[in-house]
């Protein structure tokens, strides 16, 4: 199944039309419990699921296994890919040329996802958005953060990327190109951040621990 497509983001009935710059101390207000509301789409999902089980098309165990597989997709998977690319130049070349095969070497299956790897360099900084909805490389990074889906991020980062990056605490030098990638169709995008200075002696695992989700979306850089 392709969980990263365009027609079923129905968890938007709360206000996230504002940006949250990266701030580990920031506490997001809790989302209201929704387990007492049988919405149209929730009812439809339950009905379709029960029908499919009843007709023997899937088993409850298939559904549980798929949910567990989705839950296992987390930003740490992407961080492992980045750390490998930083320590193995040949891997980095393969990652850019044949992302699916290269990521499989690190032990992750990106399924049917068509991935484009965007390498940050001293000349170019890449940042990813989906202005039409919320396309995101879920097969490698898991579910997108709320701000990625917000109207504010989606509309502003294409138009004033440097200002938005600054709100995330990311200052891009004037002479460095900012390249925005609008994920409007069948490709998904993954930013390969630059390896920070002062990490020369670090192991691959230590490097992976430095890499956070937002750097792989391109709104932040990795620091040591």
């Amino acid at each position: 199944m392709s969980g990263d497509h365009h027609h079923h983001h129905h968890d938007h009935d709360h206000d996230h039309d504002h940006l949250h710059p990266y701030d580990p101390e920031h506490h997001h207000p809790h989302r209201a419990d929704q387990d007492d509301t049988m919405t149209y789409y929730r009812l439809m999902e339950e009905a379709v699921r029960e029908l499919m089980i009843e007709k023997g098309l899937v088993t409850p165990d298939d559904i549980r296994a798929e949910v567990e597989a989705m839950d296992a997709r987390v930003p740490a998977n992407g961080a492992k890919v980045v750390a490998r690319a930083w320590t193995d130049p040949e891997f980095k070349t393969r990652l850019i040329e044949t992302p699916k095969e290269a990521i499989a070497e690190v032990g992750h299956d990106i399924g049917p996802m068509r991935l484009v790897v965007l390498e940050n360099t001293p000349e170019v900084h890449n940042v990813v958005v989906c202005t039409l909805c919320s396309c995101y490389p879920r097969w490698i990074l898991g579910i997108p953060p709320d701000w990625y889906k917000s109207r504010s991020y989606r509309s502003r980062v294409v138009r004033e990327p440097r200002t938005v990056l600054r709100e995330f605490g990311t200052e891009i030098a004037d002479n460095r190109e900012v390249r925005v990638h609008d994920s409007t169709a069948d490709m998904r995008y993954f930013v390969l951040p630059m390896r920070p200075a002062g990490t020369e002696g670090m192991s691959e695992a230590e490097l992976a621990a430095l890499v956070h989700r937002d750097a792989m979306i391109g709104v932040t850089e990795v620091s040591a």
Partner: protein
Amino acid sequence: MARFAAGDRVRVHKQFPPTPPSHIRTPYYIRGLSGTVERVCGAFRNPEELAFGRPGTPEVPLYRVRFRQKDVWPDYEGNEADKIEIEIFEFWLDAEGDEA
């Protein structure tokens, strides 16, 4: 087969508004503008058909097209070299200078 190749100059159709009801993947802000094909992504089923439960075949070539931010937003503040890249299906593109 793909009509354009990497490096080709193309212009996005300027259609506003499309005939409703419709589902399109070419953002409003890029219509009518010229850019350079960055790569051919392959061919995919047409989302404008898929959205209505139709098969979306034959598959349509999809491109990543690179635009200068200064061309997209006349008041853009930032480096002259700043770019935006967007996936655009072939039937939204003309060769630059060739458009009707």
